[in-house]
C-alpha cells in the first residue's frame, strides 16, 4: 500500500516530528511504500542542515535524512513556508541575494510547492497528518 505523510510541526516543539518519523519507519517495516513526506508550516524546520541539538539528544533532521537515504524517500519542503522560515536551497538563496553558502536545506530534502501535497494525496492510498 502507498502511504504519504504530512508533517506540520517543527522538531523539538511537541512530538509530531518524532511520531511521524517512527510511523514512517513502521510503514516501511510493514513492507508498505512511502510515496512522499511533505513538510508544511513549521514542519519545514525539520529540513535545515544547521540544526545542532545537544549530543545526548536525538537529531531529527539527521534521522529524516538518513531514512530518506536508506529508502530513497521523497522529502518535500513547502517553498513558501520554507522561505518565511529561512530554509533555502542554493537556487533560492541565490535568487534572494543571501550570499554564498547560505543554502541550508538538509540532505535528502527538496523544496517544492503545494502541488506536491495535492498530488501525493491523489497518488497515495493513505495520507496521515502529524501536527500540533
Amino acid at each position, binding site marked *: 500500500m502507498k502511504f504519504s505523510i504530512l508533517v506540520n510541526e517543527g522538531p523539538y516543539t511537541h512530538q509530531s516530528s518524532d511520531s511521524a518519523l*517512527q510511523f514512517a519507519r513502521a510503514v516501511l517495516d510493514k513492507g508498505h511504500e512511502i510515496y512522499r513526506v511533505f513538510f508544511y508550516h513549521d514542519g519545514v524546520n525539520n529540513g535545515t542542515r544547521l540544526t545542532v541539538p545537544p549530543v545526548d539528544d536525538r537529531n531529527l533532521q539527521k534521522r529524516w535524512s538518513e531514512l530518506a537515504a536508506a529508502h530513497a524517500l521523497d522529502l518535500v519542503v513547502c517553498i513558501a513556508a520554507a522561505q518565511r522560515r529561512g530554509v533555502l536551497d542554493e537556487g533560492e538563496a541565490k535568487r534572494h541575494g543571501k550570499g554564498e553558502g547560505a543554502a541550508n536545506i538538509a540532505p535528502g530534502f527538496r523544496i517544492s510547492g503545494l502541488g506536491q501535497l495535492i498530488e501525493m494525496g491523489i497518488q497515495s492510498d493513505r495520507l496521515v497528518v502529524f501536527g500540533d
Partner: protein
Amino acid sequence: MLHIVNKSPFQTSTLQSCLDHALAGDAILLIEDGVYAAIRGSAVAAAVTEAKGKVTFHALGPDIAARGIAPEKLIDGVTSVDYGGFVDLVAEHQTNQAWL
C-alpha cells in the same frame, strides 16, 4: 474511518469534537498526549466508556509508557498498539482524520 487524537482532553477539546463526529464502527487512536484520555477514573473516562459502545478505542503503547502510565490504569477495552499496529489501523480504514 480512523480518528487520530494527539492532544490531552485536559488541554484541548479535540477528543470531544472527535467523539461528537465519530460514527458507529469508527476507530479512535489516541497518540502523544492524547493517551491521557485512556486513563481509568479521569474526568473524561465516562465519555470514553460511553463511546466504546459505538467506536473502538486504541492507544499508542510507546506513548503510554513514555508518560509513565501503567497498562492496568487503562480503561477496559482500550487496546494498546505499537507503531506497527498504528500502520495496520491506517491500512484497515479507507480514510483517517487527525484531530489537530
